């Protein structure tokens, strides 16, 4: 089973040179720590920044410089600041190549639910609906099962969805999976020590297993 850090580390391998990337709150934020230094990439923050740098030192803290999770941040060299309309113009216009975000549920046709639990949670969708409707490549980082043990990879989402047919790849604590164009989770890799059987058992949606499934190495 992968730790949160390992999920982030595995996702970082999907990053390609020259990409502009939006990282969601939680595990996706950790991805930044594992992107190889020789790749030139730019992190976008949808509240209006291209070029997120590391968290600041105490002395560097600037209340006028936060990320979309409201955390204080710094800027790398070559950054640009812009307003929220421009930020989502960038996202909606397909200029951001890769979006990595968390999810409560993903369906076997690539629908994602991550913004609302009726009667329980009413925080709002923030920028997630714009991101999933727009990015050309969307990778979900999440636990394979909920805390109560229910699979989060479903035939259909049970929660209100954030976007339809948009997720391309899912990295969980158990596996790496891709969405098949005709529906279904294609099992690509297993976490170290996790069997195909366990993944099958914990995947409620259709799981597609073709040939030998390699184990991830770290």
């Amino acid at each position, binding site marked *: 089973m992968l730790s949160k850090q390992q999920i982030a580390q595995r996702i970082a391998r999907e990053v390609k040179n020259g990409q502009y990337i939006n990282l969601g709150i939680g595990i996706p934020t950790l991805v930044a720590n594992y992107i190889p230094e020789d790749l030139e990439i730019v992190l976008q923050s949808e509240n209006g920044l291209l070029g997120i740098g590391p968290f600041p030192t105490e002395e560097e803290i600037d209340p006028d410089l936060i990320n979309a999770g*409201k955390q204080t941040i710094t800027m790398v060299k070559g950054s640009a600041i812009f307003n929220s309309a421009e930020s989502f113009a960038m996202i909606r216009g397909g200029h951001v190549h890769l979006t990595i975000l968390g999810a409560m549920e993903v369906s076997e046709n690539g629908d994602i639910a991550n913004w609302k639990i009726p009667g329980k949670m009413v925080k709002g969708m923030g920028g997630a*609906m714009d991101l999933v409707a727009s990015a050309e490549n969307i990778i979900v980082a999440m636990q394979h099962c909920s805390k109560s043990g229910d699979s989060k990879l479903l035939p259909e989402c049970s929660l209100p969805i954030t976007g339809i047919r948009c997720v391309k790849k899912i990295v969980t604590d158990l596996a790496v999976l891709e969405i098949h164009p005709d529906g279904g989770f294609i099992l690509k890799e297993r976490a170290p020590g996790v069997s195909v059987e366990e993944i099958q058992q914990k995947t409620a949606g259709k799981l597609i297993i073709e040939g030998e499934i390699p184990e991830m190495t770290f």
Partner: protein
Amino acid sequence: MINKTVKDAREAVKDIPSGAFLMMGGFGLCGIPENSIAALLERDIKDLTIVSNNAGVDDFGIGLLLKKRMVKKMISSYVGENAEFERQLLSGELEVDLIPQGTLAERVRAGGAGIPAFFTPAGVGTEVAKGKETREFDGKVYLMERWLRADFSLVKAWKGDTAGNLVFKGTARNFNPMMAAAGKITIAEVEELVPAGELDPNQIHTPGIYVQRIFQGENYEKRIEQRTTRS
């Protein structure tokens, strides 16, 4: 050059009536019009509708207006930092429209730009699409969304001049420029107010045409929600 200066926040917000439709800049607590909110709190008005990406926190920002029950409706994209907000919402005291953040930004931008409606892919197939016209362009489905315009927009900038030109700093810019353009009356508070002519015309983020009142704010707290540092 037209002079937009007013004395202070109290003067700037004195004619905002009960039931007004307001916009307030800011993302979280970053770039919010602290002085105008404080002056509004002194006013005996209610039933406000407020367009703002977030709803402040319990004891700061729009949260203060909520606590004083001055708000009838919030139009926002993310309101997760505010327990009082959640209580009023679940008890039915407060109406809330939750809108995808990019759609919110673009609807406000459209309001200022005289675009009554536009199409966006955000929210297609979700409950956000309920009751909205959908349409396919070049093989992809989009929702039609309408503009948003306000009776009063309350924005906050870093620097401004007496002509109403504004310059923002860092991610405190966020929704402020679009909201400035979408308000019938736009009230801008700035950390530093300078005479017209001192700001570089090439570096103005919000041209003064959008601003009806401007004043130099004071005692900015600029509260940080998630103080995060590296070791």
